[in-house]
């Protein structure tokens, strides 16, 4: 059957608005992107979409202990089980609800699929002049097997407000799952927003993760992406700066082994003057894992005096791992500062011997050097709990019992 047929059959059983029908038809006409599409050149969905994912949901009960096992234990939690919002916090100045319809860009097949059929997700709205001190943790649990699910979320942050998030998508069984996720973040003037994504799902999970950020004057938005788990992960992270003096920060750490695949596609659209963007992606590849990085920076004619920085550094720790890295700069303004760099390397033998001569075992020495390599990006994350999780997952992944904190 394949996924696209299942989607078609499912859509015939429900009623859709004319607008959504249009989006769905546009998806069905073009189907999922293929490697002929420039943005998917190194990332094939062929194997995934040929599988028979079901769209209907048959949820199971979930244990509280299961939730705590996967959570970072923040006080404020939004918990979804099979798409249903089962718990949400009360926070002064913040309105939280389940899925609410909103418009998004419609120039992308996968986004159109999400916009037309998705009915799950959250809507968070932060009032003006509100500083939310406590981190909001968002957990999406899936109990169903072999399921295709979608989430569609919106975060609206009012003027002069601040908020931080940590998010995880987690399967509670080890079967194959496919998630098409989308979050739109609107940052009003003078806002400060941090969104941390911990992508550490089970080894059969497939994720297409889309985040669009729209920023107004003097806003600051950080999106940090930590990829440790999953079988296939594609992140599309887009920033659009629609005001002067904005700052967009992206930090990424991918640590992959076995046959894991992860693709980080970022796009920063500098539309306004005096803005900054900083992008730091670190990839560590073991086993037969494969990574893709594609960072596009667009500097529009009005975006004078911007400062855009991008780096993608990769460590290949095995013979069979690969990375495709591609920076793309399009600059149409003449008074700007843009820099980018990409490195692909191995661990330094001198440093390894140095550490071993101090009594640090070879695997531990490799782990310490790998941590040192990734730490530049990890250290940019302001939420200490997230940094600790990153350290722990990294040690687990490299199979060492080390504590990197002091």
């Amino acid at each position, binding site marked *: 059957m394949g996924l696209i047929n299942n989607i078609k059959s499912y859509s015939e059983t429900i009623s859709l608005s004319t607008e959504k029908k249009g989006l769905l038809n546009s998806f069905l006409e073009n189907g999922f992107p293929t490697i002929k599409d420039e943005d998917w050149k190194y990332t094939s969905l062929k194997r995934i979409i040929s599988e028979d994912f079901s769209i209907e949901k048959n949820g199971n009960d979930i244990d509280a202990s299961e939730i705590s096992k996967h959570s970072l234990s923040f006080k404020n939690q939004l918990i979804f089980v099979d798409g249903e919002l089962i718990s949400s916090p009360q926070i002064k100045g913040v309105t939280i609800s389940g899925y609410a319809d909103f418009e998004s860009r419609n120039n992308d097949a996968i986004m159109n699929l999400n916009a037309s059929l998705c009915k799950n997700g959250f809507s968070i709205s932060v009032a003006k002049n509100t500083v939310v001190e406590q981190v909001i943790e968002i957990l999406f649990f899936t109990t169903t097997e072999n399921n295709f699910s979608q989430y569609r979320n919106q975060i609206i942050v009012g003027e002069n407000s601040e908020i931080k998030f940590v998010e995880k998508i987690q399967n509670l069984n080890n079967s194959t799952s496919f998630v098409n996720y989308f979050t739109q973040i609107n940052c009003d003037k003078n806002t400060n927003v941090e969104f941390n994504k911990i992508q550490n799902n089970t080894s059969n999970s497939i994720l297409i993760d889309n985040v669009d950020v729209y920023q107004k004057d003097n806003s600051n938005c950080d999106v940090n992406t930590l990829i440790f788990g999953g079988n296939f992960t594609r992140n599309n992270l887009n920033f659009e700066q629609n005001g002067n003096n904005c700052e967009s920060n992206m930090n990424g750490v991918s640590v992959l082994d076995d046959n894991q695949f992860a693709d980080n596609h970022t796009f920063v659209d500098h539309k306004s003057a005096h803005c900054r963007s900083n992008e730091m992606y670190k990839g560590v590849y073991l086993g037969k894992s494969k990574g893709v990085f594609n960072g596009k920076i667009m500097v529009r004619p009005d975006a004078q005096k911007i400062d855009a920085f991008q780096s993608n550094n990769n460590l290949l720790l095995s013979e069979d791992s690969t990375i495709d890295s591609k920076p793309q700069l399009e600059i149409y303004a003449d008074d700007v500062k843009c820099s980018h760099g990409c490195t692909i390397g191995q661990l330094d033998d001198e440093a390894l011997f140095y*550490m071993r001569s101090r009594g640090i075992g070879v695997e531990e020495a490799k782990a310490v050097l790998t*941590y040192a390599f990734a730490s530049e990006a990890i250290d940019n994350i302001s939420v200490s709990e997230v940094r600790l999780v990153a350290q722990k997952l990294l040690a687990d992944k490299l199979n060492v019992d080390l504590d990197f904190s002091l």
Partner: protein
Amino acid sequence: MLKINNLKAGIEDNQILRGINLEIKAGEVHAIMGPNGSGKSTLASVIAGKEEYEVEGGSIDFEGVDLLDLTPEERAHKGVFLSFQYPVEIPGISVSNFIKTSINERRKAAGLESMTAKNLLKMLKEKMELLSIDKGYLSRNMNEGFSGGEKKRNEIFQMAMLEPKLSILDETDSGLDIDALRIVANGVNKLRTKDNATIVITHYQRLLDYIIPDFVHVLYKGKIVKSGGKELALELEEKGYDWITKESDKQWA
């Protein structure tokens, strides 16, 4: 403690050590001197277990075990420490984190629990005082952006923290000004006990004014060609190496 017997080692087809014999007892300080290229640093690296050197023959007995059978980390666990001539920069790892990991890996190998944070901090403080190191230094990245002198001081700091039985100081004096040299040498002297031993590798006699050796050996073309007491170093300072090397060349011809 250490007995090196007819050690031959080299790199690829180039033999550098051509039969080293050396015996060191607990409590002793041995200086190894010699002209550039004589094999001093190679000897240090081979004792510590650097894998790019190929050992062609001989043995390095350390307290009844042949070090040549052990990995570099196992040698460290036994109590061997090499102060590097060129310490490696490791961005992303703080000095304190690095030292903590070294200590705990050694403890793990000995079947001990990790050192508590409290004890570790106490020990760090104590050893920092010994070497006149200020506190901000602990949070700096390992050797990153350190001056030559800071790097060497960091080596001795690690030595102080790891409390090895056998320390090999490879050209610890290079890159040190006279004040730093005095501090480092003073640290080394304070760490001396009757149970540990030190090998000081140096090109110049200068360091030996501060760290007084019990024995001085001259290494030339991969062999120890002359051994003596501390006065040999002074003689070398005065006369240079020529009188020894010429004699050896004559003999070998």
